[in-house]
């Protein structure tokens, strides 16, 4: 059987044109996927059963789902400041349950955007976001900027499907319809495919953005000879390219959110793009990583009013990134339990943050043995969403799509596990109140 229109549960491109051949409930062939998507769908060694251990340095022992779930509920119900982190590799359906569980235990819910595009959300709070769907850019954009992102590696089909090589209505010559400009601190494989590579000194993106804004505003006179390692002449040339666009699109990544300036870089990039709209049409969009990290932001926003890092300890949502984001909480040693699901804090937080996790009970819900598993006291394996479970995910541009199920497995879904933990937490809290 060949299943068509399959969605890829890896990156924020959420490609929905895969075809997967399934025989005897096994994936035997994957068509149209990139190398990463294929690897993801083909799968890896699974955690076979729930496991627990009292001491993080001892061996795990296999336990029943009930035992692991009940113990997880006990830890969460009895903790004063639990962190519930991850979520981005799950479906929207389980995220809603995650918000509810966080309310029930008075914890803090935070997602992987915290170490990814969290600063982009802060930039949006400051300046908004002129954006659109990927097809709008595919059909119209004649100037394409990649700033601090490397889609060849992180979003392998992006340039073929949405941004560079594909043909669209007003871009019917494909690659030749577009001028591609890459800003980065090193000449990446994406930069090698660009018409123009602009090398920025590490940590000096903010200045380069400011210089471009000045030039676009007609104030080249205030721009120094070189900014961020780029000559004024070059900056003027790039600014003219941007101003001359009928439709310009800026795709940006961790090169802006994680480097010096962080959210201020996004503020400045959004400002540049907003100001360019005096000349042509211009948009900007973050290159989201996990296939449903955008879904978490949406679910969290409609459930709580806030996009992530929501503290429910007061009985209502409280949001103050920098105070309520995972790494701040961990570094301040506030957390007394960690519930890590559909995201790998262990592999993607600074070592000093993870070391704090080493001191508190850690519950890890994941199909696979991750770095967080190494830190965990309880491990509960679940279905792989988008391969073994259908449900909702949001593409990086906020287009909501329904992931398909390809094969059946006996593992419970994240949502089922969360439902059971919520029920047990209520039982424990009900009994003690």
């Amino acid at each position, binding site marked *: 059987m060949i299943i068509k229109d399959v969605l890829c549960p890896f990156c924020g491109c959420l490609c929905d044109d895969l075809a997967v051949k399934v025989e005897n409930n096994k994936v035997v062939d994957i068509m149209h996927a990139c190398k990463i998507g294929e690897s993801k769908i083909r799968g890896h060694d699974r955690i076979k059963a729930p496991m627990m251990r009292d001491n993080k*340095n001892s061996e795990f022992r296999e336990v029943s789902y009930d035992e692991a779930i009940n113990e997880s509920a006990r830890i969460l119900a009895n903790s004063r400041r639990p962190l519930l982190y991850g979520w981005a590799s799950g479906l929207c359906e389980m995220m809603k349950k995650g918000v509810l569980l966080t309310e029930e235990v008075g914890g803090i819910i935070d997602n992987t955007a915290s170490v990814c595009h969290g600063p982009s959300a802060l930039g949006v709070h400051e300046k908004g976001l002129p954006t659109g769907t990927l097809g709008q850019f595919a059909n119209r954009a004649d100037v394409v900027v990649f700033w601090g992102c490397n889609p060849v*590696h992180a979003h*392998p089909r992006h340039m073929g499907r949405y941004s560079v090589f594909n043909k669209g209505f007003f871009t019917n010559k494909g690659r030749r319809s577009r001028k591609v400009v890459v800003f980065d601190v090193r000449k990446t494989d994406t930069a090698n495919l660009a018409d123009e590579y602009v090398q920025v000194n590490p940590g000096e993106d903010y200045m380069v953005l400011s210089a471009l804004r000045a030039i676009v505003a007609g104030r080249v006179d205030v721009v120094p000879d070189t900014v961020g390692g780029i000559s004024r002449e070059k900056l003027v040339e790039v600014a003219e390219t941007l101003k001359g666009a009928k439709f310009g699109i800026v795709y940006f990544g961790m090169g802006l959110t994680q480097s010096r300036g962080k959210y201020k870089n996004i503020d400045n990039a959004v400002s540049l793009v907003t100001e360019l709209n005096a000349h042509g049409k211009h948009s900007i969009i973050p290159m989201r990583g996990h296939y449903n990290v955008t879904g978490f932001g949406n679910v969290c926003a409609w459930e709580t009013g806030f996009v992530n890092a929501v503290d429910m300890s007061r009985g209502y949502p409280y949001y103050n990134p920098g105070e309520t984001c995972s790494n701040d909480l961990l570094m301040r040693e506030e957390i007394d339990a960690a519930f890590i699901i559909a995201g790998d804090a262990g592999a993607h937080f600074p*070592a*000093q943050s993870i070391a704090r996790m080493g001191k508190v009970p850690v519950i890890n819900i994941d199909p696979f043995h991750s770095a967080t598993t190494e830190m965990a006291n309880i491990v509960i394996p679940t279905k792989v969403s988008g391969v073994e479970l259908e449900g909702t995910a949001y593409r990086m541009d906020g287009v909501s799509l329904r992931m398909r199920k390809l094969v059946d497995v006996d593992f419970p879904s994240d949502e089922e596990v969360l439902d059971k933990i919520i029920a047990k937490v209520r039982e424990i809290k009900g009994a003690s109140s």
Partner: protein
Amino acid sequence: MDLKATFISGRTVDQGCNLENKTSKAYFDAAGYCEMNSADAGKLCVEPGNNVKVTTDFGSVVVPLKICEGNPDGLIFIPMGPWANAVVDPNTCGCGMPGFKGIPAVVTPTGETAPTMQQLMARLK
């Protein structure tokens, strides 16, 4: 002999392919290395595959060297993951995001062996 450098981390295809395969040798190969250009490697007198030690104010890690000519002089890259995490800056400057890029680092040749993911995590508990 050591090299003063600016450290960044980031994504790669192979790191992505092994995100759900983290206990494997393939993940180590995909995420446990340090990239610099050949000129910088020459200054250190190290060959690709030799181990180097990357040290920042926040920690140090031993990984094998790879050459990437796209890196400008003095820029080193370790794919995002446990090896990079050993040297990144946990300070979020009040915005939630730690410092994963642009960290001053020193690279030295070393005879030490590179840790596995499990060994790195074991240091933290």
